[in-house]
């Protein structure tokens, strides 16, 4: 982020800005807890989010500690492990829903900068923590260029977005608003090669078709589920999609594909996206 002010370096000191700041600090009185905002935005994000007309209300968080059940796939077949897929979905849903409920309780219009993480725990076996953390914000009059009456999505819940403060600023300035985070997950069992195949492939440069097929199927399932969630929100599109793949603790033939992004809608039909200023830096 670049800030441009119309004063030179010396002027802020001459104008007495630091002295005004110190005068404010000297006046601080202990207040009542509860009328304070909390946020885990960085300073850059905090200032940019305020600039597009949103006020941080509070840090919101939802988490769930989940025991993931066992499911063993048929050794020689590519198949989705639906018990595990369900588990990953359910656990993330719990975390996200709780975070949305906290935001709702604050009467927020939305949640920005959401981090959705999963961490396997060392205590117990097959236990993972799913945690969703974000900052609830409220739109002030004139946010998004003015004239926007409703920021919540069609489920009357605050919008959620995993966009950083900088991306949120860019999106709002471009005339779009987030609707909600959408995700698709698929846990897939990749077939083992039969012994004959394995021997036949030794020393040859050849595509492993089953593995390729497994990769395609798993990815397609995850992405189409994400798509379906976006359609349920009546979104125009999805931005900031991340496609992650991890095996967690299930071994090398079981892997989870996880697609997550933010569904968006246009704020007005006649939006025009500003051309950015092009810059070539002359320093090394």
């Amino acid at each position, binding site marked *: 982020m670049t800030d441009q002010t119309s004063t030179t370096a010396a002027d802020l000191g001459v104008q007495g800005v630091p002295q005004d*700041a110190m005068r404010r*600090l000297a006046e601080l009185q202990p207040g009542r807890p509860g009328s304070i905002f909390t946020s885990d935005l960085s300073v850059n994000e905090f200032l940019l989010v305020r600039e597009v007309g949103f006020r941080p209300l509070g840090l919101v968080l939802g988490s769930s500690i989940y*025991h993931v059940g066992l499911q063993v796939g048929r050794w020689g077949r590519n198949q989705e492990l639906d018990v595990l897929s369900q588990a990953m979905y359910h656990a993330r849903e719990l975390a996200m829903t709780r975070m949305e409920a906290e935001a709702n309780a604050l009467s927020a219009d939305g949640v920005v900068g959401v981090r959705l993480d999963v961490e396997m725990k060392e205590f117990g076996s097959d236990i993972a923590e799913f945690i969703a953390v974000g900052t609830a914000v409220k739109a002030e009059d004139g946010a998004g260029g003015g004239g926007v009456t409703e920021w919540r999505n069609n489920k009357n819940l605050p919008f959620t977005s995993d966009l950083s403060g900088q991306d949120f600023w860019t999106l709002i300035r471009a005339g779009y608003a987030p609707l909600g985070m959408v995700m698709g997950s698929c846990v897939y069992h990749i077939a083992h090669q039969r012994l004959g195949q394995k021997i036949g492939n030794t020393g040859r440069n050849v595509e492993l078709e089953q593995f390729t097929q497994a990769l395609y199927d798993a990815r397609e399932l995850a992405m189409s589920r994400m798509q379906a969630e976006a359609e349920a929100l009546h979104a125009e599109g999805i931005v900031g999609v991340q496609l992650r793949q991890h095996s967690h603790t299930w071994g090398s033939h079981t892997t989870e594909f996880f697609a997550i992004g933010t569904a968006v809608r246009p704020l007005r039909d006649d939006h025009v996206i500003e051309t950015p200023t092009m810059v070539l830096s002359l320093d090394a």
Partner: protein
Amino acid sequence: MSEDRSGHELPPAAESRIAEIRRTGTWGSALSADEFTAIRSVGFEPVGQVLGAAVYNIGYTGGWACPGAWAGYGGYVTPYQSVTAVSSTGSMGSFGPMVQTLYQARHNALTRMSEECAELGGHGVVGVRLTIGGFPAGGMEFKAIGTAVRAPGGVALKRPFTSDLSGQDFAKLIMADWVPAGMAMGISIGARHDDWLTINQTRWGTGNAEVTGYTDLVNESRHDARTQLDRDVARMGAEGVVVKTMDIRIRDRECPMVEHRKDHIAEVTIIGTAITKFTRSAGHAIRRERSLAILSLDPQRRQAARVRLGADGPR
């Protein structure tokens, strides 16, 4: 000396270093060139590097009893569903004393650092690094280091502000009419007995299930830590807090009251900077332009930026 310094006198070594700085006027700092420029650009001056430290022996932590075991005939038994006891409730077996010590130790380190700042004539400390570690000769060492800055001609503060923001972030806030009030902390330790419901939900053959006991432990502990953070911010009279770190550590222990059963303990620490808005006096108000979106034409710079700002990189 075993008396607890409430902090009105600095150790002799610190006093002599500060006297030297005052005499020669040459300050040392831990600021980089960029940070130094950023601070100067908003009219503040660096005054010197300041340090506050405290070494504590943690002898008594509380937590001597299990909060969730039920009294039964001839001893304590494991209930079907127990409760999470967080440190702020002061209930039987809570870790209140430990949390109070952690607070007090960090607070002492920060206060001593602020006093060095005040002796140098500074108004506050930026770029504070607050660390905990083992002290080589025993005990836990709490250290706070930062750079003191001064607002020339500004009114003296009873308590200098502290903030873990970098020089650049500090300058950006000042330009937007926000000023850091101090560092705020929320600490909580929660304990929960492993009840039958939890044991059933974590068995090897159990299918997908949320482990309600652990979820409750984690949520209650975090909630308590956030409440403590709010109280800390309110004590300073600030308007809000920008959180930098939120850590959680979970461990288990043998239950002190029921044989062959475990308790789980979660320790949550939240640290951030409390900030408050200030208004410029009449005549100082200037119209600030909006942020400028730039598209850098230098491919190497953009590549480097892409690599640096990874999924969880700095923002």
